[in-house]
């Protein structure tokens, strides 16, 4: 042993010093380098596929040999409709390799790919794990779909795609001016869902005004049936009938003011009147017992088994509860009942709007392919396949001729016809998810409908939440055009 190294642990020799500093370095080097590192990788967006030949058959100039990747949310609508449309794409472009996957966890699966700058070409951004649209738009992660809307439609080349859509679909995809960031593919009718058969058993028709509604609930209560139930675990279902009710009483501009987060928007008399009407259901004990603790399947199950007459819901309920809705149920949807004769909008006013938001990421490699796939989905044939397999309308205006419509779907189409132009489209649930679901839904409406808070304090609470959202600079804000 040389005299330069220590034999025991009393001194510290040169070699030990080197060893120890090496050990220290093990820890120190990464800590230093993180200052310059950044885990959310750099993205280059210049690895897009080459455009194809533009022609009448191919107005979006799709590169027929480029691969395409589609990710679909596997939820209430299933994936069959998307797979059918994918088959059409493969037939049109036989050289293209199409990668198709379905997941329920949209955000978990796709978030890393957005961060890495390698998202798929078409996404159905839906479900409980929906990626926040406001953030995606604000961070310029989406492609403007205007070229798709201006392209000739598959069925009639003389018509643009935008002219074949149901009312409100294009506007819903706009967040801040002209660009259309989202293509909502399904068309959902929201409202008060009930069984025509159950009403007939009580010798009643759907109550067109609130006094009749209360009278009918009283009648049902005598028979041991509750008037209403709702998913107490997810009280943000209540707005499906409550928001159009507010619009009906005070006009759709009340909802616009609410969406725009205007100060005092919630203090409008129409809001108060609607809240008080709903609170009456609680005060008179017309809500199914235990409702505040039920989840959506629980409340829908109780309602389908005839324990309650009415439930605020959307047209997907027919597919979701297909297994337990009895054959003779005669599922129907009702528009909000009138409060009184001074209502601003006529009976029949209903909330209907797009669902299943499809997006084409701006950093996708094959943007044209993603849009082309949407164009195929918006053809009459694809729309029919969707409606047949999901019992839901699509964004394509039509596509219901020649297929047998289910009870709920028929009633939805009838409700839309009755509404005419009186279709409202509140945007809170697209623009401010947390405000709508957690704050207005669970913390405010949930408490009120469980009988733990009065309408006046609920409104105050919601206004405070809305003001906080309006003030929060970390959230992107949107306005009705």
């Amino acid at each position: 042993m040389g005299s330069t190294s220590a034999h025991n642990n009393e001194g510290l020799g040169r070699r030990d010093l080197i060893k120890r500093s090496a050990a220290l370095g093990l820890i120190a080097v990464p800590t230093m380098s993180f200052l310059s590192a950044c885990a959310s990788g750099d993205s280059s967006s210049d690895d897009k596929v080459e455009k194809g030949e533009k022609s009448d058959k191919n107005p979006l100039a799709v590169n027929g040999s480029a691969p395409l990747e589609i990710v679909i949310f596997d939820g209430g609508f299933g994936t069959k409709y998307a797979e059918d449309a994918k088959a059409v794409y493969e037939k049109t472009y036989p050289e293209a390799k199409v990668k198709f996957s379905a997941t329920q966890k949209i955000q978990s699966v796709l978030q890393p790919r957005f961060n890495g700058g390698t998202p798929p070409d078409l996404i159905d951004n839906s479900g409980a794990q929906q990626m926040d649209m406001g953030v995606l738009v604000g961070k310029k992660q989406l492609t403007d779909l205007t070229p798709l809307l201006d392209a000739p439609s598959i069925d009639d080349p003389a018509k643009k795609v935008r002219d074949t859509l149901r009312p409100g679909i294009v506007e819903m995809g706009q967040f801040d001016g002209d660009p259309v960031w989202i293509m909502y593919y399904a068309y959902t009718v929201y409202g008060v869902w009930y069984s025509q058969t159950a009403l007939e058993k009580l010798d009643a028709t759907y109550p067109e005004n609130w006094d009749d509604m209360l009278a009918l609930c009283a009648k049902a209560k005598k028979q041991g049936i509750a008037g209403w139930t709702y998913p107490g675990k997810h009280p943000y279902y209540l707005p499906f009938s409550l928001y159009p009710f507010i619009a009906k009483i005070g006009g759709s501009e009340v909802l616009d003011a609410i969406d725009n987060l205007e100060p005092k928007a919630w203090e409008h008399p129409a809001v108060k009147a609607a809240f008080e009407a709903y609170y009456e259901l609680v005060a008179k004990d017309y809500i199914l017992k235990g409702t505040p603790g039920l989840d959506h399947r629980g409340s829908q199950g109780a309602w389908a088994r005839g324990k309650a007459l009415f439930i605020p819901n959307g047209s997907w309920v027919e597919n979701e509860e297909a297994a337990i809705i009895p054959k003779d149920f005669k599922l129907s949807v009702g528009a909000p009942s009138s409060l009184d004769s001074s209502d601003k909008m006529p009976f029949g006013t209903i909330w209907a709007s797009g669902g299943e938001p499809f997006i084409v990421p701006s950093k996708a490699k094959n943007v044209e392919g993603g849009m082309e796939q949407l164009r195929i989905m918006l053809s009459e044939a694809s729309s029919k396949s969707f409606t047949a397999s999901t019992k839901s309308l699509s964004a394509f205006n039509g596509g219901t001729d020649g297929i047998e419509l289910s009870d709920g779907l028929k009633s939805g189409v009838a409700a839309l016809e009755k509404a005419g132009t009186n279709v409202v489209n509140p945007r809170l649930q697209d623009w401010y998810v947390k405000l709508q679901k957690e704050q207005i839904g669970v913390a405010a409406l949930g408490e009120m409908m469980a009988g733990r808070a009065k309408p006046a304090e609920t409104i105050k609470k919601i206004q405070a939440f809305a003001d906080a959202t309006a003030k929060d600079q970390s959230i992107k804000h949107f306005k009705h055009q």
Partner: protein
Amino acid sequence: MQHGKYRFIVGFLVVPMTLYVIFVIWPFIQSIYYSFTDWTGLSPDFKMVGFDNYTKMLDDDVFWKSLQHSVLLAVLLPLVTLGLALFFAFMLNVGGRRRKGAAISGVRGSGFYKIAYFFPQVLSIAIVAILFQFAFDPAQGMINGTLKAVGFNDVPDWLGDPQLALWVIMAVLVWCTTGFFVVLFSAGMASIPKDFYEAALLDGASRFTTFFRITLPLLWDTVQSGWVYMGILALGAEGFAIVHIMSVGPGGPDYSTTVLPLYVYQSAFRDGQAGYATTIGVALLLVTLAFAAIVMRVGRRERLEF
């Protein structure tokens, strides 16, 4: 034989240390870094915003509620769970009536009980949460069904009631964690020499005295590590899973069951505010470290050799 001692140690430690640094230390450092940015989690571009996230957090009512509930869970759950587990383990190993030929034995049927207590550990936490959600269902659940059958007409809403929801969550957490600690403490008790118990027996000590004078002091190290482990479970994974799956919202009626990890999850994966989420994560890290430090300090005793 000092020659090459360090090389030997470092050689063996270098792989685990590297893994630990890459997969534990490094993400921690990254999280702290991201908590000073406005990263959304949905796009690769973000900028530094200084302490904005932290000031926002301190003004955030939901954060304070989550913190309060998390701390409550971390304080109460170990107390109840470990208390129950100690009692059960003692009864299974030492608490039996004395049969012939054995100085100590468990209660009759202790072999079966051991399996029964450990059973919840085998089930995935998600399944436990879903099963209990059915049991606590106010309309069709087993618990209210039983209450009604016994003649209670005014049955509670359980998870739908802000006064009760958190207690229901805690009860489920106790149910699914106690078994593990019963087995852990049983193993600890098995290593306590039998002569101690025989001596206590000859002196005429009761079960009660035996437990507090012999079993508990000799088990103390195990209890202490169990305490830290249980607290971390309550603050972290298990607490999150049960709340996320069972509670209304999730987060409970009127924020009555929200906990820190749930709020981290919601900020990151629902609101698209990954930067703010990591800020709350940093708060959770501090709470967890503080908890572990307090337990280690308070529980310090001299080690008994046996």
